[in-house]
């Protein structure tokens, strides 16, 4: 059942440049969607728009629809929007050190959500904070609840931030590169925690990442973004196993293989374009080996591959080529 449906979302800056252009996404209850793309591809911006918390001045949602449980979120007034944030959609961030208040105990920051959204008493909220810390795997939570963020390690801070978000009991958790700042073993623990929460609480998760390895381990479905547009969406096995968009294929080929590989690492030629200089037609065409004149002038639409379950790509020359074993983990 669809929890969040984003259709044709367009976000423009003050100059009218579309930083996010016609993005359509959906997340079901209990589903983990991986939103993949390079820095500046608009993945964070698209997710901020879902909470109507666009960063900085001059950015505005210029078109599209965001429906949460069928209700149009963009039509909400500020007060109703406040009830959506935290309570319906929670968010965790890449850098937990800066996203936690340094002068408030972890316990108080978790309890704040209980008190604010559920009117819990001080004592109840504290008990619930200890319970939440236990749920996210903090050892000795009854003692740790009175610690400040700087007394936690990086991985524990990320767990604490997840607990802070969970305190509001959201249906959907947007995780913006939650493991990028962590070392590999801790990354694994945090990803396991997210999967575990999905299984136990039926939480839907949008996992923003640039790391296909993280996606392969954690997600059910994948959406790939490039230069503000969606290139490819579909089930994890379809997208990673039989990518149809040259950009997705390039990303997969860029992954260093675990056996060390032979020769130089494969890279995608060139740089992603700046927002002010998005090329006409397909935005990937200057870096694409398959580009034709059609690609330089006509913007490709997302087209569903007929034989599949919603595996779609925005490419004039979309072909599926079965990829060398990217799908693992599960």
């Amino acid at each position, binding site marked *: 059942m669809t929890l969040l449906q984003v259709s044709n979302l367009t976000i423009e800056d003050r100059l009218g440049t579309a930083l996010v252009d016609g993005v359509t996404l959906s997340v079901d209850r209990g589903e983990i969607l991986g939103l993949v793309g390079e820095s500046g591809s608009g993945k964070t911006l698209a997710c901020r728009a879902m909470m109507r918390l666009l960063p900085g001045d001059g950015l505005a949602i210029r078109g599209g629809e965001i429906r949460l449980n069928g209700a149009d979120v963009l039509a909400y007034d500020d007060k109703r929007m406040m009830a959506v944030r*935290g*309570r319906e959609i*929670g968010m965790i961030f890449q850098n937990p050190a800066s996203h936690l*208040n340094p*002068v408030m105990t972890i316990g108080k920051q978790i309890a704040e959500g209980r008190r604010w959204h559920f009117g819990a008493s001080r004592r109840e909220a504290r008990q619930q904070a200890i319970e939440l810390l236990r749920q996210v795997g903090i050892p000795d939570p009854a003692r740790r609840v009175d610690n400040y963020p700087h007394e936690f390690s990086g991985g524990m801070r990320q767990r604490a931030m997840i607990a802070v*978000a969970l305190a*509001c009991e959201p249906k959907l958790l947007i995780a913006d590169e939650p493991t990028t700042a962590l070392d590999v073993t801790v990354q694994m623990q945090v990803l396991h925690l997210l999967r575990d929460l999905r299984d136990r609480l039926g939480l839907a998760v949008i996992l923003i990442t640039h790391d296909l390895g993280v996606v392969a381990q954690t997600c059910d479905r994948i959406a790939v973004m490039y230069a503000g547009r969606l290139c490819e969406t579909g089930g994890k096995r379809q997208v990673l196993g039989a990518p149809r968009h040259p950009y997705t294929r390039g990303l997969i080929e860029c992954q260093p293989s675990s056996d060390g590989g032979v020769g130089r690492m494969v890279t995608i030629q060139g740089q992603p374009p700046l927002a002010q200089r998005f090329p006409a037609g397909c935005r990937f065409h200057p870096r694409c080996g398959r580009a034709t004149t059609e690609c330089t002038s006509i913007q490709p639409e997302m087209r569903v591959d007929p034989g599949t379950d919603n595996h779609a790509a925005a490419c004039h020359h979309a072909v599926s080529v079965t990829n060398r074993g990217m799908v693992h983990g599960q």
Partner: protein
Amino acid sequence: MHRFRFVLWRPIQLLPVLFGISVLVFVMVRSIPGDPARILLGVRSTPQAIARIRAQYGLDEPLWLQYFYFLRNLMNGEMGKSIIYRVDTLKLIDSRIQPTIFLVLGSVLLAVLIALPLATGAARYRGRLADHAIRLISTIGLGLPAFWLAIMVILLFSISLGWFPVSGYGSDWAERLHHLFLPCLTVALALSAVLTRNLRASLLMELQNDYVTAARARGLSENRIFWRHVMPNSLIPTINLLAVNIGWLIGGTVVIESVFAIPGLGQLLVKAIISRDYMVVQGVVLVFALATVAVNLIADLLTVALDPRVKL
């Protein structure tokens, strides 16, 4: 609680500071030209009378011995007899300290009461008319010299409007409050300008922080985010600035008490310097030094209480 243990060490760390100050003021006050006995007795005094007074107050002893007596008296809780007032300096200070304490506390309280709402308003309505107005006013406040401001305040509130007395200090509490209001206001206007600008900048910086975004993403109201998250973080640098300024202010009472004729320590110090009343100068300066150190200790305590990352 171990983070507060530094309080126990402070008095020990303080001893060398106070020793240095006592030596400095002892030497400085004696290096001003002029002889207290001659000033006390007047120009037509005989050399014998002057010598008698000098002997009576130990001024004919060698300097190092005088300093030794000064220290020995301090150990016994005395500061030496005032040449002019003929009482122990400590008693003199005791009788004059109250107006100064109230002047300083009143000024700081008033300055905070002015600065807190102004900085809050400026930060929350950044770039709007209120912000520009508050910044303009505080810039003007920074530029006005205190003695000029004092005169303008007296002209407006005492002479034109007649709301407050021009100078002096009352005999009961209501009267004292009435007398102290204008001097406190004069100090507070200048001090609040500094505090407002600092707190506004600090608030704006904190508002940019990621934890504010995270708090918004949890659905907290702007009011709650501002008062519970942003304000405590912003107050930390402002409290330390305030402590430095209170240090200046304690010295500044010398000027303010003279302008408003308040019988406090500042005025006592000025008179003592003019009449070369060595003991009183030493005593008052030591008290000022102690007060400054105490203010900084309180500021450190507040910083440690507000910021769990700080260890002293």
